[in-house]
């Protein structure tokens, strides 16, 4: 036993225990004193506050960040909206108040009272949202009669406003009420049920920047629910402004060109992957989503044959048609199954395994080399190249060119497209690959599927000498005061699987498509800007014998055109698809050409599409 505790019985240790007891006694006296103060001294004040739960918390919504184009043109902003809410417990005679209110709002009282039903207990202290976005006239009436409408409050809330209506609707996206799953996922903090969040497009992708943080205030309310004083306020942190890479003028021109068409067009800067314009047609009106879209309008959008809610630039999957010959050409040259001097004889068709595979030009191209084959889009030449390559080598090159997988642009959901291989077919259908199918693949038909964005990025990589960039829609994120929070930088994600020589051959071929004597897109030619491009026609149904028969519009082939310009130092790369547009050069070529002009000649906004007498016709044959 040590000396200290040996003396445990003596007064000295007793003293330490007494000391502890004294400390404890003091603490308990403090607690009792505080309790007495709260309950006996100021208890009546608290009693009063507790009667109708006078201290309440009001949430202050943060203003959502703006969406702007690369030059600072506002695309999405906020506007005030006056919402009428009703707190049943504050009203006294709830039904009477609702009847008066219904008269002022010119709606039926039953409609209002049905919303308030089942609000008892705790719920009676929660304001029920009765009517959103009432006009200023109704607001004036209600404000004037405020004293006769206990329990009624008008909240000013912030509402999204898409300034240019359906402009870039697929890109900007829309908002919607947060779903229970999104709430439970708990990705963004401070999210409450009933909040709106980005559901599609940029609004969804950059939700974390745009959202901001809610604030709130503690208020004391009187017996009829009116705020008597604000006890404490925490300001909301506004969302960040998101500047896109989009050029407003080019986007507007592109949408104009796509009017009345089902299709999509994407323009990117080949030197860094910035998306300059991305349009999908037909557009939709995002403002209709802001206060919740009604079932009828939603159904109309969903059942529309042209699928307006789909961003065809990133979600639309089409066989690439002859634009895929860029890939076949690269693969053929790199695998050395052909070289610059190789020629094939085109008689208008190739017989293979007892079937004729036709060239689009019935009478045949005669003897063609790679240059002419690209310029005149000779199918027979690429059938032969494809035969020599086999499906799996084509698939390898296609994937290395960025096809068959998402581009990583960040707009979800993004379609991946499809690049078939022998393994894929075995897995998918359980049957081996047929060599004849390789011929279809080589000219971009068959199982091949690509999105316009994928083809634009491929074209951009061909244009810039082989660097594949990740497509970007974000330029920078700024605070409300203009401080840059984040600046997006070019991101090279790979190289085309092509040597400089191969690329030069392909580039020359594409230049001849537009500028050559017999190029398939001569109509796209401009005198002042040299454009290089490739047409494409993707069959919706198999090419039939005797192709002059009438084809109903929805079975007509989709038209493609991809291009870049100027050829000397490319600054824009474009992919255009027109659904059921038949031939690339007639339906899509002029759209791409007008986009090139709008961007490189910097046309003033809104100039009419009339110069050169070009008309964009769906299904017209050139």
């Amino acid at each position: 036993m040590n000396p200290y505790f040996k003396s445990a019985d003596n007064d000295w240790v007793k003293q330490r225990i007494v000391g502890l007891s004294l400390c404890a006694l003091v603490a308990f006296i403090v607690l009792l004193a505080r309790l007495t103060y709260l309950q006996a001294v100021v208890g009546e004040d608290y009693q009063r506050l507790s009667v109708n739960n006078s201290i309440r918390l009001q949430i202050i919504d943060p203003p959502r960040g703006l969406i702007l184009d690369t030059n600072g043109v506002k695309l999405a902003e906020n506007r005030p909206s006056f919402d009428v809410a009703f707190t049943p417990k504050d009203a006294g005679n709830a039904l009477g108040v609702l009847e008066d209110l219904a008269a002022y709002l010119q709606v039926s009282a039953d409609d209002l009272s049905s919303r308030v039903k089942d609000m008892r207990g705790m719920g009676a202290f929660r304001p029920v949202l009765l009517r959103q976005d009432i006009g200023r006239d109704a607001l004036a009436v209600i404000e004037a009669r405020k004293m006769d409408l206990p329990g009624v409050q008008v909240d000013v809330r912030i509402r999204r406003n898409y300034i240019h209506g359906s402009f870039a609707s697929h890109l900007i996206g829309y908002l919607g009420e947060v779903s229970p799953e999104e709430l439970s996922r708990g990705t963004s903090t401070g999210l409450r049920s009933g909040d709106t969040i980005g559901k599609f497009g940029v609004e969804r992708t950059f939700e974390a920047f745009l959202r901001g943080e809610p604030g709130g205030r503690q208020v004391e309310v009187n017996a009829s629910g009116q705020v008597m004083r604000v006890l404490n306020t925490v300001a909301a942190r506004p969302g960040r402004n998101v500047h896109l890479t989009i050029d407003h003028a080019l986007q507007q021109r592109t949408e104009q060109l796509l009017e009345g068409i089902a299709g999509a067009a994407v323009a990117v800067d080949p030197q860094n992957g910035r998306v300059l314009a991305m349009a999908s047609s037909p557009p939709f009106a995002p403002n209709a989503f802001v206060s919740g879209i009604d079932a009828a309008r939603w159904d109309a959008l969903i059942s529309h044959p042209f699928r307006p809610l789909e961003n065809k630039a990133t979600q639309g999957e089409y066989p690439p048609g002859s634009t895929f010959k860029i890939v076949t050409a690269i693969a053929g040259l790199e695998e050395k199954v052909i070289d610059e001097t190789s020629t094939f004889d085109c008689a208008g068709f190739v017989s293979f395994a007892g079937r004729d595979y036709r060239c689009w030009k019935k009478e045949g191209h005669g003897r063609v080399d790679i240059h002419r084959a690209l310029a005149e889009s000779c199918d027979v030449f690429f059938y032969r190249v494809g035969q020599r390559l086999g499906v799996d080598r084509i698939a390898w090159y296609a994937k290395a060119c960025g096809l068959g997988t998402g581009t990583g642009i960040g707009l979800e959901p993004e379609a991946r497209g499809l690049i078939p291989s022998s393994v894929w077919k075995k897995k998918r259908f359980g049957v081996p690959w047929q060599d004849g199918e390789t011929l279809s693949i080589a000219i971009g038909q068959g199982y091949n599927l690509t999105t316009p964005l994928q083809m634009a990025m491929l074209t951009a990589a061909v244009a810039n000498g082989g660097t594949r960039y990740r497509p970007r829609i974000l330029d920078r994120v700024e605070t409300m005061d203009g401080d840059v929070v984040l600046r997006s930088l070019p991101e090279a994600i790979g190289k085309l699987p092509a040597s400089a020589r191969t690329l030069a051959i392909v580039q020359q071929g594409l230049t001849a498509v537009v500028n050559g004597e017999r190029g398939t897109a001569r109509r796209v030619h401009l005198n002042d800007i040299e454009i290089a491009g490739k047409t494409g026609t993707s069959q919706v149904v198999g090419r039939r014998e005797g192709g002059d028969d009438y084809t109903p519009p929805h079975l007509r082939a989709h038209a493609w055109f991809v291009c870049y310009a100027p050829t000397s130092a490319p600054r824009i790369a474009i992919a255009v698809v027109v659904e059921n547009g038949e031939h690339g050069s007639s339906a899509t070529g002029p759209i791409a050409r007008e986009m090139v002009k709008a961007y490189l000649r910097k046309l003033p906004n809104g100039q009419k599409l009339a110069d050169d007498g070009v008309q964009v016709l769906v299904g017209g044959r050139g």
Partner: protein
Amino acid sequence: MFDRRLVTNFDWGLLGLALILGSIGLVSVYSAVTADPPPAPQKLLFYKQIVWFGIGLVVMFATLSFNYRLLERWALPIFISCVLMLLAVVMFGKLAGGSRRWLILGPVHFQPSEMIKIAVVLVLAKYYAKTADSRGLTLREIVRPMLITALPVGLIVVQPDLGTAGLVALIAVTITLFVKVARRSLALLLAVGAAVVPAVWMLLKDYQRRRILTFLDPTHDPLGAGYHIIQSKIAIGSGMITGKGYLQGTQNALSFLPEEHTDFIFSVLAEEWGLVGAATLIGLFAVLVFRGLSIAHRCRDPFGKVLAVGIVALLFWQVVINIGMTMGLMPVVGVPLPFISYGGSSTITVAICVGLLMNVSMRRFMLE
């Protein structure tokens, strides 16, 4: 080898006190959970708490059935296994409300940070029973207990659960001061502390400082803790002298109180029973603390003495912190009110505490 003196020395008074407090707890939990509005009348929680109460009684009797001095030998293994469980919580614990506090073993969910409080008391009692003497602890003697305490405190801080971490530290400091620190060592420690705290403060990032300020003063967070404190004060104050009557509390009924059946159960009780009821409860806690200290006083075995003081410190600080918090005197931390709050881990911990105190009390004659 049953000793009849165990029966004659049985601490009936402490048992009675514990049963009274536990019953008050059950009655309060019933009010807190049944007054919940639809759609969540959580009566199930009340029945669960009755089960916990029963388990607690069993645990309490198990804890007093063996000679507490065996614990002197088991203190270190118990401490180490508790620390390992804390480590497991930090690594695989269930994430709830932004922190990892729960360990899940099959159907059992429990918080090792509850057990570690008792483990720290045990291991410190073992250490001080050997080292302490009347000159007070020297600096060198104080290093080891500091490290022993810092280990679990650090693990609880990273959960993060600042409240429980602070509680464990407070218990350790109380025990250490009780066994006496030499005046020179104490002065030196205070001086070092006075120098280090401002230095650390300077090193902290802005948001970290704000978090600590908010922790110390809830009015910095008017939308969260600050709002809860206001509602808690309204609930308590509006009870006035005689209270609104059992099950008549309105603040509670409207769910304006957060965690009304766990951390803020005192507000429920004070609203319904008024100053009369709430002061009685505080008085009962005071009796418990003084009873515990008298057990420490009468115990002649150094380990038992420090152990009893440590257990009293554990209960005392939880009572003061919890009740102080509901009245706006203390930071808002998730520390349950012993005997009263709903919760299995807390109930079992309190049962062990009472069992240990009774154990020490009834074996005080056994010292040879």
